């Protein structure tokens, strides 16, 4: 069963073409980086994958569920970390996670056990009783990831999850999500505009002005210097 399949997605914002015939897929257990400069259409694609809105044309399938035909079946398999924080700063870490669990139908002891499991997974177990306000930027992001994992999704979508973090926190989160793909078999789509978050064995999709410029293994696309290659590719069509 394939993790994530994007098929000929086209979307417009008014008269402006935001995405044009975008197709790619990410297999189960694969870490795929969606690389594109600001305004490439990454956030639009995330909105479509999470059904905040629906595309003009094309299809999206998540863990074998077509998003248009069985939206709730598909949404149940998605864990998503948006660029915007979703944490309620007035509530404790535990309360925040329980709220999200309940939105996915989990409550009571099952939810409590799950809260501890995801917090342990992210090395934050001792923080469960703290108010979210007391967490630093890196921990808040980790908590977002913990939240996204609450309902055991099979597809994890992250929209520039390292924005605003210092170098050490960034490396730690990039590494952790790589491990989630490798160890837990999660399908990961990681949107970024930062080349240094991508590793040579990762799958890579380069998005620019709403089109896919390149798709394949990062090492093959980038050669010796992905950064240079990225500028070359996106510069060539501007």
């Amino acid at each position: 069963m394939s993790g994530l399949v994007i098929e000929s997605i086209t979307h417009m914002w008014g008269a402006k073409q935001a995405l044009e015939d975008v197709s790619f897929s990410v297999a189960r257990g694969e870490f795929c980086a969606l690389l594109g400069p600001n305004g490439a259409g990454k956030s639009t694609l995330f909105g479509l994958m999470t059904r905040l809105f629906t595309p003009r044309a094309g299809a999206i399938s998540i863990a074998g569920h077509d998003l248009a035909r069985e939206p709730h079946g598909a949404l149940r398999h998605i864990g998503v970390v948006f660029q915007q924080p979703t944490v309620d700063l007035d509530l404790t870490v535990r309360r925040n996670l329980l709220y999200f669990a309940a939105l996915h139908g989990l409550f009571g002891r099952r939810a409590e056990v799950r809260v501890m499991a995801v917090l342990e997974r992210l090395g934050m177990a001792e923080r469960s009783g703290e108010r979210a306000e007391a967490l630093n930027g890196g921990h808040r992001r980790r908590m977002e990831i913990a939240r996204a994992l609450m309902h055991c999704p099979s597809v994890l979508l992250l929209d520039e999850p390292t924005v605003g973090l210092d170098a050490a926190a960034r490396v730690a989160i990039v590494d952790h999500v790589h491990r989630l793909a490798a160890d837990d078999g999660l399908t990961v789509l990681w949107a970024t505009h930062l080349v240094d978050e991508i590793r040579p064995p990762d799958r890579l999709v380069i998005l620019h002005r709403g089109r896919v410029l390149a798709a394949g293994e990062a090492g093959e696309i980038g050669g010796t210097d992905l950064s240079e290659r990225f500028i070359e590719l996106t510069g060539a069509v501007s």
Partner: protein
Amino acid sequence: MNAVPDRDAFAPNPPKTLNVVDADRLDRDAQGRAAPAFFHCAIVALSAILQREALRFLGQRGRLLAALARPLVWLIVFAAGFRAALGLSITPPYQTYITYEIYITPGLVGMILLFNGMQSSLSLVYDREMGSMRLLLTAPLPRWWLLTCKLVAGSLISVLQAYVFLAVAAAWGVRFTPGGYLAALPAIMLGALMVGALGLVLSSFIRQLENFAGVMNFVIFPVFFLSSALYPLWKMAEASPHLRDICAVNPFTHAVELIRFALYAKLDPLGLAVTIAALAVFGAAAIWGYDPARGLAARKI
């Protein structure tokens, strides 16, 4: 290309429990007893949303104070000044001459509903709330249900505020019968749902909210002042028949009248009909506005 981080620094303890639930099992559960499971999830989500609103409300003590200060200033200062200037004749539900304080109390209950309803619905488009709105809308439940949960939660907070205000008003000398307080409960709830639904409609069409002042000037004030909250309609007609007509079609007028009659344990059938009809229209418009194929698509996210 990448720095090699210290892997153990991040998650020093291997997790003891991993997959307590898995989505596929939930799927099989859902297929086996689709309707009960779905119903169950919907109820769990509703109670979580109610609980979250309640916790947030309790966490922000200033909010209750601010919500009470506004109508109390009107009741204590404004009404005292107007008492002398304004003569009120006996109109239903009143059977005797009343003071102006008694007249505007239901209107001020309406004011609480209006402010709180707008605030809680429009909080969906506040910058800092954008993330939590996305969280809500990406839950695997129908949009109309998620919006209903949000609406009910905000309305219950409004009702709570309204009764705290009525208690303070009683201490000030504006009292109703126990039966009136009881009969007002469904009326206040219905009014709260109606203005909350209007707020949801606005939130689906407003791109992004810079501040609350715009909404106050262009929505709350006209809705409030062009209603029977502060002056009876016949008094309005003396000033201008056109103004009176505008007030008479304002659904907020009918919500206020419904509450006014209910506080005397009486039913205002027209008020009830118009408030329910307005709730239905605003509710349908909100669901349409939040349709994934439309609504948010009009807003650049």
